[in-house]
């Protein structure tokens, strides 16, 4: 099954193994295995299957329960990740990012609000309200992650986190800059610069603290 990328399609549902050129849609539902050759622009985008996009994605509401690899930028109003999203060579920009799955990029993630209970690997995360709480520690996952402990699988790894409010757990970062910063359990941070309230858990490792802050 093939769509051509002319003009505006209203809604599309993609099943099976499909290659599409890209294009503009109102709603697009991708199950199955899909390759998008160019750019994709939609209002609602749902990916439940496996999708590779060789262009950029622009969407209003985007949810990914499946596996997505994008070789371009992703620019959305809201994105909800329960699956695995990898962005190669582009950036992710959004008003709101919710990630309970895995998000990996070598580039920048910029959003007003980021709420992650999953795992994020990125060069930079910037925005207004950033909460990343990786390092699950309930019964079953504790056993699972004991096996993967040496690989650092359960930690989020980010070079720079910079936001007005930062709340972290289970995060390894080189630099964290913020107005109000909470470094929670099992974090390992190179340098924190804080200009407001700073909270550091006893189990966290923070090598350097700068800025005019109040410890709480």
């Amino acid at each position, binding site marked *: 099954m093939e769509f051509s990328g002319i003009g505006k399609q209203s809604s599309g549902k993609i099943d099976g193994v499909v290659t599409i050129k890209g294009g503009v849609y109102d709603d697009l539902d991708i199950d199955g295995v899909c390759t998008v050759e160019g750019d994709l622009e939609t209002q609602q985008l749902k990916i439940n299957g496996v999708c590779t996009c060789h262009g950029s994605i622009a969407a209003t509401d985007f949810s990914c329960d499946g596996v997505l690899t994008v070789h371009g930028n992703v620019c959305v109003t809201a994105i909800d990740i329960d699956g695995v999203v990898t962005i190669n060579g582009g950036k992710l920009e959004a008003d709101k990012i919710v990630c309970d799955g895995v998000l990996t990029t070598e580039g920048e993630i910029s959003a007003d609000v980021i709420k992650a209970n999953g795992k994020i690997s990125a060069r930079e995360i910037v925005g*207004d309200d950033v909460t990343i709480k990786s390092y699950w520690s309930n019964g079953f996952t504790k056993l699972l992650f004991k096996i993967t402990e040496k690989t650092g699988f359960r930690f989020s790894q980010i070079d720079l986190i910079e936001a007005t409010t930062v709340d972290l757990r289970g995060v390894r970062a080189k630099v964290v800059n913020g107005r109000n910063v909470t470094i929670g359990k099992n974090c390992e941070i190179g340098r924190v610069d804080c200009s407001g309230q700073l909270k550091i858990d006893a189990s966290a490792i923070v090598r350097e603290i700068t800025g005019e802050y109040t410890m709480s």
Partner: protein
Amino acid sequence: MEEISKKELLAETGISYGQLYRWKREGLIPEEWFVKRSSFTGQETFFPRERILERVKAILAMKDGWSLEEIRRELVGEEDSALEGLIREAIGAVIRDGESSAQAIVFETNDGKHYMLLTKDGRVLADGNVKALAVLSEKAVRERIKAFGETNKR
């Protein structure tokens, strides 16, 4: 040109990281103004001092009465025209290559700027949001519009 660091900018203007990055995403502060340099503290970001202070002052003065989109059109108008020009040029190239006649319309609505590529008899070949195009690279814009033209030839 005199520069100001990101940290000094926030301290001097009172804006937050959230505001700075939201304005960057909305195109109110050009990406080219964010200049990364190595300093003794590590990597730091610097801006052209006069331009950034002037821009932030203008945004702060306008933000209570205007939407970010309106502020962008007012402050960054010339860059919009550049994008419009790019669309027209790319469409022009499609028309020349395809030997078909079509016209490009760029119009504004409350949601922003939209473009439409129409044939002589009013058939829509392509339409979309200019902001979405701005997110896609220049190269992607050209390729995309060229692809519409090629499909039209068939």
